C-alpha cells in the first residue's frame, strides 16, 4: 500500500459534502500522522476550537471502538485554527488506530489509520557472495553471504548447499553451527567449509576427503523461500558458480604484492595488487597507511578484482613524504592462511609472532614545469 499524501483529507462531515452552503462552519479537516511520532491534527476554518474531548485516539479499528475503551495517553494542544494530539509513546507500525473527533457542531466522526512498516515492502535480495571470484582455491575456507535486509536465523542450513557438477549435494561440505555466524544487523552470514575436510590427515579429511576437487565446477546454492526476519517476504533462488583451482598452501607475504604508487599532491589512489584473493571482510580494516610518526592517513578503501586488489583514496592529497602500508598479520587469504601461519600447519609448528608487517612507499614527487 502506498504511503498517504502528507495533507490527506481523511474525512469530511456528511453535512459538508451534502449541503455545504448551510453549514460552512462545519468545515474541518483531520490530518493523520505519517510517522510514528507525528501528531493527529484537526484543522478548523474558524479561530474557534471546540471544547473538551474534541479528539481522541484509540487502539484498534472502529468496529472495536470505543465503548468501555480508554484513549491513548498523550498531550493535547489547541491554538488558533488547530487542535492536535501527540501520543506519549510512538504509534506502532502496522497497527490500526481509530481517531474519534468532533466537528464544531458536535457531529462525531471516526477514522482509522495505520502506519505501514518500512521493512518488507520489497522482497529481500542476496546482494553479494564473497569470495566473489569464479575461480577459487581447493582449500577455500569461508563464504560471506550478504542480504539486503535482516533474515530469519537458525534456518540457514535448510537453504544453503554446495552443489556439485551433476547437481549432487554434499551434505557434509558446510559447517552446521548451533549458533549461526551473523553480523549484528543479521544481513551478513558467514558460512564455513568444514575445516576438518580441508586440513589434511585429520578425521573428516581422511573419511570424506576434501569438499572441493581441482578442476571441477561447483555452485553455492540458496534455495528459494528463506524468510526475512519478520517472515513477511521470502528470498528467491540464488546460485553462485565457481571452478576449483590449486590450493593455497604458502604463507602470504607483502613481498609478492605490486604497488601502483600515487603522485604527491594528488588524490590518486594507492593500488595494491595481491598475488591471491584475501578475506573480503578483513580487507576492510586489516590494512592501513601510516606516516613515519605512526599517524593514520585518512581515506576510503575499495576492494576489487575478486579480492585481489586493494585501493586507497586519501581524503587529503598525498604529501611528499615516505609512508608505510601497515598490515595486520592476522589478515587471512581465502583459505584462512595468515602472515603468521598456515591454516593447515603441522601440529606443534611455531607461528611467527609479529602483529604487523610493513611495506614502505613514497608518493611520486611531481616536477613542476
Amino acid at each position, binding site marked *: 500500500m502506498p504511503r498517504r499524501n502528507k495533507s490527506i483529507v481523511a474525512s469530511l462531515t456528511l453535512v459538508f459534502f451534502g449541503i455545504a452552503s448551510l453549514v460552512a462552519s462545519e468545515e474541518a479537516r483531520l490530518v493523520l500522522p505519517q510517522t510514528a511520532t507525528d501528531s493527529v491534527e484537526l484543522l478548523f476554518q474558524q479561530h474557534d476550537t471546540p471544547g473538551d474531548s474534541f479528539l481522541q485516539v484509540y487502539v484498534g479499528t472502529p468496529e472495536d471502538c470505543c465503548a468501555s475503551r*480508554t484513549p491513548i495517553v498523550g498531550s493535547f494542544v489547541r491554538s488558533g485554527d488547530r487542535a492536535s494530539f501527540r501520543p506519549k*509513546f510512538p504509534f506502532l507500525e502496522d497497527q490500526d488506530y481509530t481517531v474519534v473527533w468532533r466537528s464544531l457542531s458536535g457531529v462525531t466522526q471516526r477514522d482509522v489509520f495505520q502506519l505501514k512498516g518500512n521493512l518488507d515492502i520489497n522482497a529481500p535480495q542476496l546482494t553479494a557472495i564473497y569470495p566473489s571470484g569464479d575461480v577459487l582455491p581447493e582449500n577455500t575456507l569461508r563464504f560471506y553471504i550478504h542480504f539486503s535486509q535482516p533474515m530469519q536465523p537458525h534456518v540457514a542450513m535448510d537453504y544453503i548447499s554446495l552443489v556439485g557438477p551433476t547437481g549432487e549435494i554434499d551434505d557434509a561440505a558446510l559447517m552446521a553451527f548451533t549458533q549461526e555466524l551473523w553480523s549484528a544487523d543479521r544481513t551478513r552470514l558467514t558460512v564455513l567449509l568444514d575445516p576438518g575436510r580441508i586440513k589434511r590427515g585429520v578425521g573428516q579429511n581422511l573419511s570424506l576427503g576434501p569438499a572441493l576437487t581441482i578442476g571441477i565446477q561447483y555452485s553455492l546454492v540458496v534455495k528459494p523461500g528463506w524468510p526475512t526476519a519478520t517472515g513477511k517476504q521470502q528470498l528467491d533462488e540464488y546460485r553462485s558458480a565457481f571452478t576449483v583451482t590449486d590450493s593455497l598452501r604458502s604463507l602470504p607475504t607483502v613481498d609478492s604484492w605490486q604497488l601502483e604508487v600515487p603522485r604527491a599532491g594528488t588524490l590518486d589512489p594507492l593500488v595494491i595488487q595481491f598475488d591471491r584473493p584475501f578475506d573480503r571482510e578483513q580487507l576492510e580494516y586489516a590494512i592501513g597507511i601510516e606516516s613515519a610518526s605512526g599517524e593514520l592517513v585518512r581515506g576510503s578503501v575499495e576492494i576489487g578484482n575478486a579480492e585481489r586488489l586493494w585501493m586507497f583514496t586519501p581524503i587529503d592529497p598525498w604529501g611528499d613524504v615516505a609512508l608505510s602500508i601497515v598490515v595486520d598479520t592476522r589478515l587471512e587469504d581465502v583459505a584462512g592462511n595468515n602472515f603468521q601461519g598456515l591454516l593447515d600447519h603441522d601440529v606443534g609448528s611455531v607461528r611467527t609472532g609479529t602483529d604487523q608487517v610493513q611495506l614502505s612507499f613514497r608518493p611520486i614527487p611531481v616536477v613542476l614545469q
Partner: protein
Amino acid sequence: MHLTIKAATLVVSASLLSVGQAHAEDDVPAIQFAGTLEFSETGTLFVGDNYTGSIYAFDLTDGTAPDAVLPVNVGEIDVKLADVLGVPPSAVAINDMATHPVTAEVYISVSRISNFGSAPALLKITQASEIKLVDMDGLDFERQALVNYPDQETTFRPRGLMGNPPTARELANAENTLSSLAIMDIEYFDGEVFVSGVAFDNFLSTLRRMPFPFDGAQSITSVEMYHIAHERYETRAPIRAMAVKEIDGKLQLVASYTCSPIVLISLDEIVDGADISARTILDYGSGQPLDMVSYSVGGQEMLFVTNNSRSPQVIPFAGLNGAQALTPEDIPEGATGDMSSLLPIGPSGKAVMFDGMSLHIDNLGDRLFVSMTRDLYTGRLNLDSNANFFPNRLHNLVAEFDFPQYDPETVKR
C-alpha cells in the same frame, strides 16, 4: 514484589553510568526497564532496571492520604493498560505492582513492546480506579548502579522433564537471560535498600545492601541455603520475595525461594563480601513464590505469600520465633516433592482460599489487599481489592448460601 519478564526482543544499551551518580534536577532518568517495585514508608518508589543494572529511586513523597482508603477495582486491567499505551494487550508485559503507602494509589511497572524495541512505563490506578501514566521524566530521582551485574547475553540451560527433551515452551523459557533475574525483589527497611537476585562472576544468588539516600556504597554477598525438597545446598537460584522482621529478638530477612523453601538471614550477616549460609526453617515442596506481603489481621502480624502453583500461604510471625534451622542431618530419609509425607515441613502456616491466581499482590491500606488476579474461568486479568482476612470474591462459587430456599434463621441446628 515479584517480577515476571516475558521473553521478547528488546533493545539494550551498553551505556553504563557511574556508580551512585548524583543527579541535577533537570536530568531525566535514562531508565530502560521498569521492573521490580518497592515503596519506602513515605513514598519513595524504588524501581529495578534490569537492563542498565541499576535501582532508580523516584520521589513520590508529596502525595496526600485519602480520608479513607477505598477499594480499587479495574476489570481487564491488561487491556486497559494497553489502551492507554497505544498497543494491543499482547504488547504489554506487566512487570510488577506496588501500593503507595500514603496515597493508596496502585503503581504498575510495564514494558511497552513496539515493532523494534521496548520502552519502560509506569502507570498508577488512582483511588477513583482511573488509570494514569506516571511521567518518570518529570520526577526527582536518584540512581544506584549495581556492581557485579550480569551481562545481557547469558541465558538459562534448556531442561526437559525426567529425561525428556525440552518442549518448545521450555526452550523459550531457557532463552530468558540471567539478567532478567538480577533484580528479583527490593526491600526497603529503615534507611536501607536490600536487593535480591543473581550476580556475576563469583556467585549467582546474591543479596545486595545499600543505604538510601544512595551514596555509592553498596555491599554484595552470596547466599547459600539448604533446599529440603531438592535435597541439596543451592547457590544459584535467587531469592524471589522477602521481608524484614524482628524474629528471635533480632532483625532478620525472611526470604522465599522457588520449590519452595523459606529461609532466615540476620541483617548483621549481610556485610560486603560475605558468603551467607541462610537458615532454612520451612519448605513447601514445590512451586514458585510470587509476592510476600506483611500485614496484620486480628492483632496478629502475618505474612501472605503467593505462589504460581500453590494456594497463598498465611504465616504468623509468632510461629517463626524459635524455628529450627533444618539441615540434611535433620531429614536423613530425604523429602522430595509434594508427595513426601514430611512436606510441608516447619512453621509453614496455613494454605488459604484464593479464587483465581494472584500474579501481583500488595496491601491497600490496613484492611485490604489489592491483587492483579487471573480469573480461572475467563482467563481475564483483573485488579481487585478485597478484605485481607478473606481476600476473595464470590462470583465463581455456588454454595449452600446461594440457594433461594436458604434461610439463615431456620437452617441452624
